[in-house]
């Protein structure tokens, strides 16, 4: 009995020593520099020294990152580390939050998207977003997909619109399932179908970049698998940035992975390398499950 208790106590003390080391590093977080390959040669979107504040609280500290053309970049990290906030900056969705202040430079193919003269409307047509909880409009499936093209004037005749709707639904692997009920409500689909509908809606405006904020977290494994397949196909034509809580998902779908911790970008590397041989201690601690 006593031997077991002694062994447990030693283990505990070892663990607490490690946790202390982690806490020390965590407190020095502001001094950490990003390791790995944050930049790329063929960048679609570039972020340099981005800081995001919600009123007085700083959510993102000095992040610099490139997202390459036709690349899938996954962003992982513990809850509250700022991944979603960072993602939403890329198409200025944070503009809707009054207390949010952003500094730094974010460019889309060289154009600064936060320039005072930059119109938010065409920006969002080039950078689309899919949200965590599927949010189809309470309209028919057809109208859901057709809304984007209509407001941007991408189709002038009904036949053109029909074509765009069909193409988008095919690209989102949803066409076969809904082709007979295009005019039934979008909200009548299952969760996985709704999320694919949202993806179809986003690609209907032919964006260049697609942002995905934990797109599968509200779905079952089979629906998730379908969407992961979809991402592989989509990455041939679109640049994709995906925030995910599931490391397995990041490992499956992305080319590069970025690890965030408490608002700082700790490490960015090729996905295989990050998950098998991470360069930073914090990354290793996260992926081996010591905290999350």
């Amino acid at each position, binding site marked *: 009995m006593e031997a077991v208790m002694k062994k447990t106590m030693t283990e505990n003390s070892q663990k607490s020593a490690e946790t202390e080391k982690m806490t020390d590093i965590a407190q020095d977080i502001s001094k950490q520099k990003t390791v790995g390959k944050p930049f790329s040669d063929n960048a679609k979107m570039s972020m340099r020294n981005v800081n995001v504040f919600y009123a007085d609280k700083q959510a993102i500290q000095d992040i610099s990152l490139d997202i390459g053309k036709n690349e899938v970049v996954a962003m992982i990290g513990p809850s509250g580390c700022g991944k979603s906030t960072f993602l939403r900056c890329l*198409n200025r*969705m944070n503009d*809707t939050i*009054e207390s949010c202040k952003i500094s730094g430079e974010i460019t889309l193919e060289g154009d600064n998207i936060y320039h005072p003269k930059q119109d938010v*409307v*065409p*920006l*969002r*047509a080039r950078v*689309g*977003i899919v*949200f965590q*909880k599927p*949010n*189809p*409009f*309470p309209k028919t499936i057809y109208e859901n997909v057709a*809304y*984007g093209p209509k*407001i*941007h004037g991408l189709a002038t005749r009904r036949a053109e619109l029909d074509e765009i709707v069909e193409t988008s639904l095919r690209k989102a692997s949803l066409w076969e399932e809904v082709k007979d009920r295009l005019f039934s409500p979008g909200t009548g689909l299952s969760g996985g179908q709704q999320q694919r509908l*949202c993806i179809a*809606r*986003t690609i209907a*405006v032919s964006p260049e970049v697609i942002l995905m904020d934990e797109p599968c977290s509200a779905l079952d494994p089979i629906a998730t698998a379908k969407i992961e397949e979809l991402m592989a196909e989509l990455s041939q034509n679109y640049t994709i940035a995906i925030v995910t809580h599931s490391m397995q998902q990041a490992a499956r779908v992305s080319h590069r992975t970025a690890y965030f911790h408490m608002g700082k970008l700790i490490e960015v590397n090729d996905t295989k390398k990050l998950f098998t041989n991470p360069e930073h201690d914090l990354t290793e601690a996260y992926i081996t499950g010591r905290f999350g």
Partner: protein
Amino acid sequence: MQKSTGNKLSTIDLVNKNLKKRYRAEKRFRAYGIGAILFGLACLVVLFTDIIGKGHTAFLQTYIYVEVNLDAQQLDITDSTDPRQLAMADYQGVIKSALRKKFPDAQGRRDKRDLYSLVSNGAGYTLRSMLEDDPGLLDTNIGVWVLADDDIDTYLKSRNSEDVKAFIERMNPKKIAWVESLLADEHMELQFNRTFFTNGDSREPEQAGIAGAMAGSLFTLLVTIALSFPIGIAAAVYLEEYAPTNRFTDFIEVNINNLAAVPSIIFGLLGLAVFIGFFGMHRSIPLVGGLVLTLMTLPTIIISSRAAIKSVPPSIKDAALGLGASKMQVIIHHVLPLAMPGMLTGAIIGFAQALGETAPLLMIGMVAFIVDIPGGTSDPATVLPVQIFLWSDNPERAFVERTSAAIMVLLAFLITMNTLAIWLRKRLERRW
């Protein structure tokens, strides 16, 4: 875990002991709730019984059957197609002749005056409209039902009850004999009171109707709806979607909430000072009444519209914004259609309130005695609640029953509008 020793009770024993008391308290609580509802229902029942009891008789009116000879000479009509001659003819004289023929025992001025007072002094209008419709009736004998005088009407309605004794003094034995004779011949009977719905106000109760008041209410309500609905929705959209969070916006919000609680007569004073005094508009027209009621209904509509807009899930707005919709497109394509059911419900309730408003309209002069039925928003008019108010002052039996009948009509409109609002709300409820 408790050990059950000697005289110390275990937990379950304690629980059981208090159980009866707790259930009794629950029953009492339920009884209070049911009692409150029953009290409300009882008040409603008393209200409706009283009003319907007093007013239902007004929907029937006494008519007398007379055989008139439309003698062209007596009517002084030479050309039966000339509207002026038709309008100026002495129809009452023709009816008087018919009455004299029926009751030849009326001799002397006094008797004849009593005889003529059996029918309403507006009975001739019936003949006039018949002749205007069909000029070929000139110089023929026709039988026609004409309005009886309100004294006869009241006598007929109360002759089988206790009240008749107090009323007998207005009648004399001769008149009563004639009435009984007409009844026996089936030449006097109660018919549906069409005059109530086709005539405007009148000094004679048997000719008084609510058509003028209803038309006035309709035009006033139309002006109110046309102005307050768009302005209210636009203000709500601005406050919810565009207004920055600062002291000025807070100031606006506080004022709107306060205005919703301001007594309605103050709006009447405002209307009097601003619309009639400063802008010089006419008194007593539905346009001014509508403007005053717009001011009164606006806070209600703004508050309920804001609540409806707030209830639209932000995820829908985010989805639309993410696709590149501009702010205005998000509001028009998504927010307004989804908020519309709530807005409509609030608006209909506001309009039902406006329909029943009296005090502010009294202040802008809609208390006048208007006989003609208004044809538009610039004709002098009165509204139904004000008409009820004016008639309620009149102690004549016939006006008492008409007041209650008008109240029934007003209540019917209010119940219809509120039921429509509730049905709309249920029908358009969405589940996200």
